């Protein structure tokens, strides 16, 4: 350990090297932030991110998803190693991507169609590219993308990512004829990973994905050639999510500035009623009065402190309508129920969808199902399946808001639900912005607004469970009741006859008959 230190003043020879790095470079260096930390986890994340992109690509256009995933081993497999090289190929029947956007959509980080206010699975627009980037840095091979929007042609690109520049390099491009008007996208590339270790999580992920996407057909062929097929249960699909305007509660100064600079409005009244969610002329007028802003003010001439003032007023004004959930695409009671039935085969099921609600200006809807019996095992707690925007959340259940509500927020005895009953709860949150705690999309933060909705939903389904359980008990009860009288009344007659020293035992048949007739009213 040295003892000399610079303490005083004087020139410091700053020999630091300052530089800019590209987003691709940043995520290349810190890929564990996005779930690509080791061969096992990276393989799981790659499959997951690609599948979610494919589902989004179908759903936004109301196409019943048919998705095929194939994972196959490449090269030697003799040695026992930490990781092997696999070829992953995923094909969907989604909307396809216009040819001019294909290279960037797969070869440029922070490029895509996902940066809009609507409910999609991928929130960060990162995952698919991270999978390809990870394949490239582990195998140094390019990726093949084939896509068509369903017109006469399909396009095939061979690309690699220039990480330093964050740009796609197109190594080859082909145009194929597409007579059958196929639409969709195929992604095909090599990556290192360890399927043997990743398998349980991959399969659980696919199983639960099928549960909340019962209108999707997903096939998966694993490296040993085994086929897993998750069949479509329904042809009904929820409405595709729509894009929405920002709600005033969720606005900050930067957003207002952006809206102003893109706006063609020249007065505040028009401006307010054009660019915000749930603000019409009337609300705009009332708000401007509240905020003491003149209707005629030109938004383009607002100065800094005026913009700050507007944002503050937006947060404190109490009379905006809450966000409208028309932009959301929940599963709905029937679809969620169908999914649960298919996966858990329960004896009883009840699903509830809450009315839309909002946090920080983002609308959300909570759907909760409860199921009893069937394939659900009896366990000491309640089994929980968590979903957000139709993707299953597998990891870190203990930190999740739904688990917290189940364990701490509900008095289960009130619902006559004892431990060790075969009960599962399925919770689904959909929102234009799900408040994940990590880029890995593993668990949901405990926002009070969301907690309140989940609790209300669980209480409702628990009530139905109580009704089911008590009806189940009642039938059993009535049978036992009649048996009881038939067994004991003759004995009362016998013993009291003996005790009284009489000979003839009284006739109790009329009494027993009356029990059968009026019994139910007696208890």
């Amino acid at each position, binding site marked *: 350990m040295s003892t000399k230190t610079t303490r005083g003043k004087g020139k410091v020879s700053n020999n630091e090297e300052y530089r800019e790095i590209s987003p691709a470079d940043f995520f290349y260096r810190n890929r564990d932030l996005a779930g690509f930390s080791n061969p096992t986890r990276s393989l799981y994340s790659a499959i997951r991110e690609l599948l979610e992109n494919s589902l989004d690509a179908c759903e936004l256009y109301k196409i019943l998803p048919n998705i095929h995933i194939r994972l196959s081993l490449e090269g030697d497999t003799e040695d026992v190693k930490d990781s092997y090289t696999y070829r992953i190929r995923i094909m969907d029947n989604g909307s396809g991507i216009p040819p001019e956007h294909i290279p960037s959509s797969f070869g440029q980080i922070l490029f895509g169609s996902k940066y809009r206010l609507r409910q999609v699975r991928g929130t960060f627009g990162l995952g698919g590219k991270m999978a390809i980037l990870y394949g490239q840095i582990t195998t140094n091979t390019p990726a093949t993308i084939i896509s068509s929007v369903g017109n006469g042609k399909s396009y095939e690109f061979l690309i690699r990512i220039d990480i330093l520049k964050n740009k796609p390099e197109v190594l080859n491009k082909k145009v194929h004829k597409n007579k059958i008007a196929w639409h969709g996208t195929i992604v095909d590339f090599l990556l290192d990973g360890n399927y043997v270790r990743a398998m349980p999580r991959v399969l659980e992920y696919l199983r639960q994905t099928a549960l909340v996407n019962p209108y999707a057909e997903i096939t998966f062929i694993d490296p040993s050639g085994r086929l897993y097929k998750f069949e479509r249960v329904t042809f009904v699909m929820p409405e595709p999510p729509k894009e929405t305007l920002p709600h005033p509660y969720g606005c900050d100064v930067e957003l207002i500035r952006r809206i102003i600079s893109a706006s063609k409005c020249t007065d505040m009244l028009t401006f307010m009623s054009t660019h915000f969610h749930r603000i019409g002329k009337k609300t705009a007028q009332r708000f401007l009065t509240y905020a003491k802003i003149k209707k005629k003010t030109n938004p383009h001439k607002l100065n800094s402190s005026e913009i700050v003032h507007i944002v503050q007023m937006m947060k404190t004004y109490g009379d905006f309508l809450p966000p409208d959930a028309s932009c959301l695409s929940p599963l709905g009671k029937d679809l969620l129920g169908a999914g649960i039935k298919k996966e858990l085969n329960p004896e009883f099921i009840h699903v509830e969808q809450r009315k839309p609600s909002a946090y920080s200006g983002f609308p959300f809807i909570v759907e909760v199902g409860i199921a009893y019996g069937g394939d659900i095992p009896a366990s000491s707690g309640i089994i929980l399946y968590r979903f957000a925007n139709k993707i299953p959340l597998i990891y870190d259940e203990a930190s999740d808001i739904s688990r917290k509500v189940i364990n701490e927020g509900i008095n289960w005895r009130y619902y006559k639900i004892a431990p060790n009953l075969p009960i599962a709860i399925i919770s689904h949150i959909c929102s234009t912005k799900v408040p994940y705690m990590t880029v890995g999309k593993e668990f949901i933060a405990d926002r009070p607004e969301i907690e309140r909705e989940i609790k209300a939903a669980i209480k409702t389904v628990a009530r139905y469970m109580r009704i089911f359980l008590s009806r189940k008990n009642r039938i059993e009860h009535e049978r036992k009741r009649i048996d009881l009288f038939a067994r004991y009344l003759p*004995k009362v007659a016998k013993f009291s006859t003996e005790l009284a020293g009489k000979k003839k035992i009284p006739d109790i048949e009329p009494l027993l008959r009356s029990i059968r007739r009026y019994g139910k009213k007696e208890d």
Partner: protein
Amino acid sequence: MAKKRIKRQSSKKKRIKRQSSKKKRIKRQSMKKRKEMTLKKLRSFGGVLYNQLNKGEFPWIEMPSRSTSNILYDDRLKQYILGKKHVKRSSRNIRHIRPVTQLVWTASFAYTLNKQGKTSTLRDIFYSAQAFDVPFKNQQESDNIITDLETVLGFAREDFNIFPEERSQIFGDLTIEYTVPGYEGNSLNLTTHPDGLAIGPALTTSDFKSTKANKIIVIEKGAMFTRLIEEKAFKKFKAILIHTAGQPPRSTRRIIRRLNKELGLPVYIFCDGDPWGMAIAITIICGSANAAHLKELATPEAKWMGLYSSDIQKYKLPSTKLKVIDIKRLRDMRKDPRYIAKPWKTQITHFLQNKRKCELEAFSRYGLDYVVKKYLPEKLNRL
């Protein structure tokens, strides 16, 4: 050998003779008469149910409620009694059909027992029921039905020849006459066996003939009972000694009452110096809430002799700290009407201040005869 025995026996003879000269008058109560009344009551109980059935009614029973709210403390009787609230048990009610059946069976079983002059334990009842297909879930249930029968008929289970397991013992100059089959008319003096005699069905149903004792000392612990026999305390204090072995069974409480009433002997109760010892004493004196439906168990004239909390200090007895549960018990006692008089009230306060408790065996610290030479004389003198 025979000769030797004669000599020895003769020495005993004199002692007994000497005792006889001072024997007390006994207010004798015939045990036989009581038995007859019991049988009559049982028969008429059967008759009531039989008539209900004959009229086409679901058989029903009415009896005083034993719920907490109906257990009252009778300040005049100095014991718990049942209030005026009654409960009806109808066999029409799904919840009552089973207990009503069990109650009738228990009555008919008790009737048979008494007819044949046999006794039965509470556990025997539990098992016997199975043969008649009126099984009890557990012994708690059968015990409870027996209490119901007591409440309905106003007789204690001992009257039906149903006894708990024996634990209590007696020793002292009292001559009894048995009424049990095979021993009818036999007499026995209770000093005969210096380890003590079990208070069982035979003793409970015996008549008291004569005594030279002038008091009863009731002792919670076996060690102290043996000590007092060994140190000849029964002679020194002219006492009949009774060992309760903790909270006394009801048959023992009845014996204490009978000794007090029939022989007119004062009763002194000697327990551990802690709330549980006090509870034993008060149960003997005032009865317990559990047996509020029975009248002939309490001995209101009996006196609590110790250990007082103040004794622990005064005699510097080895003691241990009161536990949380002890303190809780003492606090509850302050609300209990049985403890409002002296010395209870003062001692409860003393316990709570001093915060120590003490067992009877603690007297051993000062030598095995200390309790007889020092404590008991002082205490009896003061009471």
